[in-house]
């Protein structure tokens, strides 16, 4: 499955990036292809292009704050979870997608 994700936390120093790393790693074990955009203290990195989003079947928002440019995801199925979920139980997120 092709997935896209956005991670964002209030300080944008640590958890945004840890969650991105975790999602990338666990996605692989589920056999998914994933691209994760981080919205942290450095602004938006690894930005999802229009093409990335169009091709994705599901978008995962692991965020504690408002996603910047949310309108880009209109028409895509979005699963939103607290950022901690991506850290503590990323497998849970992907199993949910499988079903």
């Amino acid at each position, binding site marked *: 499955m092709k997935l896209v994700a956005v991670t964002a936390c*209030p300080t944008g*120093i*640590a*958890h945004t*990036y*840890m969650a991105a*790393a*975790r999602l990338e790693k666990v996605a692989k074990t589920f056999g998914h292809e994933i691209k994760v955009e981080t919205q942290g*203290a450095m602004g938006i*990195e690894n930005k999802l292009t229009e093409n990335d989003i169009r091709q994705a079947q599901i978008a995962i928002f692991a965020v504690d704050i408002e996603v910047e440019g949310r309108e880009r995801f209109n028409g895509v199925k979005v699963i939103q979870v607290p950022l901690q979920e991506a850290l503590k139980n990323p497998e849970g997120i992907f199993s949910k997608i499988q079903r």
Partner: protein
Amino acid sequence: MISGEANSMQFTFSCPLASGLHARPASHLAEVANRFECECTLTNLRNGLVANCKSVLGIIAADVRESDRCAVHVSGTEASVATAAIQRFVEESLSSCDVPLAPLDGSKLSDTLPRALRRAHVSCVFGTPLSRGIGQGKTVILSRIALPRDIGTPTQVDVQVELEKVKGALEAVRERIGEKIKYCITPTGSAVLQAELAMAGDVFLRQKLEDEVRQGASAPRAVTRAAEFFIDLLGRSENEYVRQRGADIEEICLQLIEELCGGLPESTIDLQEPSVLVAETIGPQQLLGIHRRWLKALILEQSATTSHAAILARSLGIPTLVGVRNARQSLMPGDEVLVDANRGFVVPLSPAVKRFYERERETFRRRRQASVERGRDSGIPHRKTIEVGANASSGEEINAAFENQADGIGLFRTEMIFLGRQEPPSEEEQVAIYAEAVHSANGKPVIIRTFDIGGDKKVPYLSLQKEDNPFLGYRGIRIYARHSELLQSQLRAILRASAEGPIQIMAPMVASIEEFREFKVAVSRASQNLSNKEISFRPNIKIGIMIEVPSVAFALDKFCEEVDFFSIGTNDLTQYFFAADRTNSAVSSSFSVRHPAFLRFLQQIVEQIHAAGKWVGMCGAMAAEPCNLPLLLGLGLDELSVPAAEIQELKQKIAALSAEQGRSLLSRALACAEAKEVEELLVPQSVGQPAPLLSEELVLLESTSRTKEEVIQEMVDAFYVHNRTADRDAMEEALWAREAEYSTGLGHAFAIPHCKTDAVTANSICILRLKEPIEWDSIQGERVRVVVLLAMRSSDGANSHMQVFSSLARRLDDEDFREHLLKYETPRQITTYLDQQLGLATPLVSVSTNSSPGRN
């Protein structure tokens, strides 16, 4: 309910007032009772205390609280009419005569208590730190009404005469309060005065005063005894409000004493053990009279930061808080307390407080050591930018100065030697004092300023008139012409002491070249006199002046031809420059030494003096405020002279700054329009050399902390020790604010607390490894062994450090990476590994504090 016989009646009521029968309602009740001839008592049925209903003090002392049942008993003539009137008052008016007073500002209970103390529920009293440090001891309350022992009890007291004096003083004080009421414009103010008026006319007070006189006390002594009695009586109340009425009675007794003695005498203080002195204010003589060994800290209710006592406390290095409202009521005599004059509060000593401050002392010790090591490692010993001398006014202070590594004495104020005595000090006495100073200095220069005395000080042998405006009056060098013999004896004493070591002479309050020329003539005359007697002294002694009066700045070309050196006294210079009385808090706070107008003035002064090749230092309060340092370095001053307690910290800060940084900051400050803009430029973190993101000193292995609080405190302390934060409390709060969102535990025994705050002076990574895992998050019961703390300055915005933080955060997800952090044995191994893994070996992050010395 009324009961009673023919001329004895009684009724009971329940107190409807939330703060009980305090001064104001009590004064109304007494007023009603006083309209009648009869005897009238009030009994508090809860505690059995009986009061004369005509006495406000008596009623207050009965400690009647909300809902207390009270019985009023009336007997004698008019008993029934009086009972009816009092009962009507109690039932109809009592509940409405308690208009709450506006809360006092300054009685704030902010959250500046460090987290660890807050968690231990430590109660505290806040104040403004005036002289830094931490002091611990037993509370000694200095009552304003204590009389010197010699006034004590005269041998012969004529009871009738003393009774008349008491009566007269009470009347005069009542009259005075009555006058004040007439001119009082606020309703609360007038209510307070009304209560004061009632208290001054209180029968209980008068009776007590008369009893004391009949037992042989003089009128003033009777007042002090009565004051002690009532303060003690009220102090025993369980009601905070009533306890604070002690201040009211004290106020009245003070006025009585003033009336009886024609002024308020200063009392002497005799300390016997480590003590914390609490006072409304304190006189300089009083302060100097206290044995320094036992005076551990000072708490003043007054908030004037430029009072003589305040300046003196600072130069003696006594930890001092000012502006502590009601300190004498909220602190109990004999209590063991700790004064934190770094943060600004007083706390009662408890095991939690002790533990916290033991740790604190250790942190300070490590910070000092780290600073010494930084200086040593820098490989540029004694990089000379600016000297740091000390201000002093006694031998004790001079010793303290050299213990703190002063480069010299930049200002020895000698007026203290002349004050508080009936006769001037002899030449011999002065020689001994100055010679001792020179000996302590051990070859370092000592600048002695000749006496600066004016109409604001009483000196019996100088016959100075009290002036309306002493700061613009007959003082400093201006009085030397008329007191030339006194000046001669001082100059001879200074010259004689100069035979023992390098001394320079400085004249105060010079406004014109004529004055300085006169002064030089006086020095020659003293030299001649000694030569004639073949007494040895150092020839060609340097003679300088204080720059305190703006006129000097406009004649510097002339002064520089004749004056050897200059010292800028910013305290007076600012008040004359801005025409703002520095003792008047209504104006003094609006005129800052950091105002661009004043900075331009200073720049002009320093440039002209240096152009003439002369030396210029600064000895005012401006020099002692660390935040001004970049500006002072930028000005290119030759010396800063500051209180002993400030020297070490100032030297550390100087070592961390270059003159180039100072100059660029000053030029920006000179371009500003407002003081506020300059202050924004001076935010302490905005200057200083970049510290590396990661260094070995921030890798703490084998930690024995037991809780999350202790871990965070230990890491924040490491930042402080290594100069990466100046405000530990703010940094700690920022970390905890992040923890409050959700715990930063990552699982796998790792946690990653972080903050984005300008309380840190450099973006940093700090790693702590625990000997025993601790619980990080009580909800998830997660245990942690390795803590990786990321601290980023909020004003830095996105930069390459952030890149490192994010890749570190990503790598923590990697088991292999975590294993390395768990297994390495030395900080060096860990930093080397992280350098490799995170690409820290780039120039940006490997800049070390040691490798970029200033350019001069």
